[in-house]
């Protein structure tokens, strides 16, 4: 037995040992002495399903200890920040890691549990020397001055602080450049190291922030080995370079003198789509970038209105573009400052989010998620609903939801019905266009035949007819008929009238007792009270049964209503898809015919000119000879052959049916 147990234990240990690293939990446990704050934050980005996800996690420091569970699957560069401190760079792996901080220093810490730390440590030590040099300047000189300034804010303390900062800035820049140089050297010397890709992230960030040349940064990236490039850090570096490039390209596009890029965006105010190109004919279009929290923007509105009033007849137009993220504040600012004179849109970046928000909140609530018109929304109504809900064991609330759902579905059905009408109209119009194009093509082919007949007297061919497409047969959509469901009302009047009857019976009993005994004993009162209570109990049960039954019936009716709405939507969707297919097919043939017609004209027109050109005296005199010569020429035969083949293809397209 012991032998078996031992084997099992060995097996389990083996399995644990074989578990891949990616499945291991990444935990970073850390200690810090004399932490300046109670909380610490970690930031990092990881690639999951080809999507870059940014993580930020904050935790409390308890007795100098803190711990983070990290969502990483590969070597990742993370940044740790204690409040008001510089960010601390650390390479983390999907393993159990232990970290010790010696004060808040960017590069001065001890990390155990990762393989990358062994490679990074020598570089980190060198970087720490320079970083400490910068830090000393600040802790020794700037921090006391800052403290002094905070205690006594006057011109003198400010001037002293500023002078010292200005004096120390070149030293700080010098050491920063040293750090940058060290990192660049490391990348160049270690193209096969993943740490190099991590260092490149900082170089790109600085290139963006401090306007270092990006081209040299790109060179550094190309210098990395393919293996490093395909790692998560390498891919992140590539993505950031691309982002910086895109931003620069965007900045160049919007430089003075450049043609404004067109944009198309949905206006929350008017509900229309606003395109810059729609205002192409206007003399001047002013893009007014504003926000409801920007005081200067708000101050400028009266002048803008005056300007607009004065010049709008001369082709002056304004489009307001707001960077507001709070939709409510944005809409109320438009109302408050009366900004509906010219189109108003939200910044395109936030638009989709805002549009979805609006769709989720307003459209659904106002348009679809409609509450019954007769719903009593007062406090008393709420109490009644609560009572009804208790009596029916939650069925009342369920019925209300079902009724809302039914209303929502009915509204959707009505919309679908409207959409079907619009689609049918589009389909009809496109069919008409196609028919015109087919007639034109038929006539062109007939003309070509006439021309070909001149060269060859005996020609036989299949008789063509103009193809008239049958209109698409749409599966008949049933009439829109979704029954309304009424809410069930609790018949309190009936209950109280029954209870009134019971009460009068009880009183009669008491009267009788008075008549017989000459008074009412305690026992009589108890008897009457018990009878009354039993009566009340039975009446209540009856009422509850009735209400529950009605409620169930209403729920079943609502469910039937929902079912017929679903069936209607199903048929409508089917019809819409067939319309869509028909529209796509018709437009496909139409475009092909238009393109083919262009090729036909290019082949037919020169021949027609030569054979049926303008009549003239010389043509009249020498006609037969010249024509005959031309008709006998090889060139004419070549041209006719080309036209014939072209017409054959043209005809094939013209005979293509929309539906078989």
């Amino acid at each position, binding site marked *: 037995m012991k032998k078996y147990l031992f084997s099992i234990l060995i097996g389990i240990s083996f399995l644990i040992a074989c578990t891949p690293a990616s499945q291991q939990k990444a935990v970073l446990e850390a200690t810090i002495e004399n932490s300046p704050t109670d909380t610490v934050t970690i930031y990092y980005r990881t690639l999951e399903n080809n999507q870059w996800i940014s993580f930020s996690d904050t935790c409390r420091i308890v007795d100098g200890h803190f711990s983070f569970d990290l969502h990483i699957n590969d070597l990742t560069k993370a940044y740790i920040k204690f409040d008001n401190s510089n960010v601390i760079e650390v390479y983390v792996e999907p393993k159990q890691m232990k970290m010790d901080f010696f004060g808040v220093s960017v590069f001065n810490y001890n990390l155990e549990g990762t393989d990358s730390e062994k490679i990074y440590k020598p570089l980190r030590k060198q970087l720490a020397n320079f970083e400490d040099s910068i830090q000393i300047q600040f802790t020794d000189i700037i921090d006391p001055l800052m403290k002094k300034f905070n205690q006594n804010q006057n011109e003198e303390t400010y001037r002293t602080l500023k002078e010292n900062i200005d004096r120390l800035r070149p030293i700080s820049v010098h050491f920063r450049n040293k750090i940058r140089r060290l990192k660049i050297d490391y990348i160049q010397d270690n193209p096969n190291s993943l740490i190099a890709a991590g260092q490149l992230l900082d170089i790109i960030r600085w290139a963006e922030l401090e306007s270092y040349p990006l081209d040299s940064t790109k060179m550094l990236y190309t210098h990395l080995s393919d293996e490093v490039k395909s790692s998560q850090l390498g891919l992140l570096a590539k993505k950031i370079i691309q982002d910086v490039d895109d931003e620069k390209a965007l900045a160049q596009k919007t430089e003075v003198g450049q043609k404004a890029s067109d944009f198309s965006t949905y206006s929350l105010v008017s509900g229309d789509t606003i395109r810059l190109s729609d205002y192409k004919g206007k003399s001047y279009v002013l893009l007014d970038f504003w926000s409801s929290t920007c005081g200067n923007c708000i101050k400028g509105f009266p002048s803008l209105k005056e300007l607009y009033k004065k010049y709008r007849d001369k082709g002056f137009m304004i489009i307001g573009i707001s960077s507001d993220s709070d939709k409510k504040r944005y809409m109320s600012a438009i109302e408050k400052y009366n900004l509906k004179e010219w189109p108003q849109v939200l910044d395109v970046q936030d638009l989709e989010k805002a549009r979805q928000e609006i769709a989720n909140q307003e459209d659904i609530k106002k348009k679809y998620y409609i509450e019954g018109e007769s719903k009593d929304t007062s406090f008393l109504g709420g109490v009644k609903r609560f009572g009804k809900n208790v009596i029916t064991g939650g069925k009342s609330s369920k019925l209300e939801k079902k009724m809302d759902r039914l209303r929502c579905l009915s509204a959707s059905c009505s919309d679908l019905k409207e959409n079907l009408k619009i689609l049918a109209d589009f389909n009809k119009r496109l069919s008409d266009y196609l028919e015109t194009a087919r007639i034109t093509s038929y006539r062109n082919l007939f003309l070509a035949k006439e021309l070909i007949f001149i060269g060859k007297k005996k020609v036989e061919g299949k008789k063509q007819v103009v193809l008239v497409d049958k209109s698409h047969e749409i599966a008949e959509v049933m009439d829109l008929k979704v029954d309304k469901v009424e809410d069930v009302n609790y018949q309190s009047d009936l209950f109280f009238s029954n209870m009134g009857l019971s009460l009068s019976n009880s009183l009669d009993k008491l009267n009788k007792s008075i008549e017989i005994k000459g008074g009412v004993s305690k026992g009589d009162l108890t008897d009457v009270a018990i009878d009354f209570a*039993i009566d009340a109990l039975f009446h209540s049960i009856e009422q509850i*049964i009735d209400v*529950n039954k009605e409620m169930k019936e209403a729920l079943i009716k609502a469910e039937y209503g929902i*079912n017929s709405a679903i069936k209607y939507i*199903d048929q409508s969707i089917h019809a819409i898809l067939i319309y869509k297919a028909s529209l*796509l097919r018709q437009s496909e043939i139409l475009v092909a015919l238009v393109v083919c017609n262009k090729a036909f004209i290019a082949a037919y027109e020169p021949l027609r000119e030569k054979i049926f050109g303008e009549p003239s005296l010389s043509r009249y005199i020498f006609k037969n000879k010249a024509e005959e010569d031309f008709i006998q020429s090889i060139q004419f035969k070549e041209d006719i052959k080309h036209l014939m083949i072209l017409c054959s293809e043209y005809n094939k*397209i013209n005979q293509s049916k929309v*539906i*078989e």
Partner: protein
Amino acid sequence: MSDDSKKNTLKKASLVVATRLENHLKDNPDALNKIQEAWREHNRMSFQLKALEKQNDKEIRLMTMKYEQTREILQMVFGERQTALNAHYAALDDALKSDDREIILASLRGISSIVSQNPLESFSEFCKVWDNKDETLYLDF
């Protein structure tokens, strides 16, 4: 009042209530039947409601799946054809500019071969098969 006397009073009251309740049921024999009938009706309706809810959920799921699939098929079929046609259109445009007859005819042949093949033929066939649960869907791959 001692605990025993409290218990006795409660016993007496319960007995009185039970007797009264018994009398009430004797006087109104329909009351119990009505409650029993209501309970049976409640169970029947609950069963019907659940079945309806399940059926509706199933129909919504089926409808959504069918719509998404047919929409995707349409997009894929016409998308592919459009890409091929656009390439032919571009080639034809260039050929017309340079009067290259061979390319003109080749691109026209390409256009006609695509356009003359009706994609809706197979699409409507697919829709028919998809809508009819008893129809066999033949897969030629």
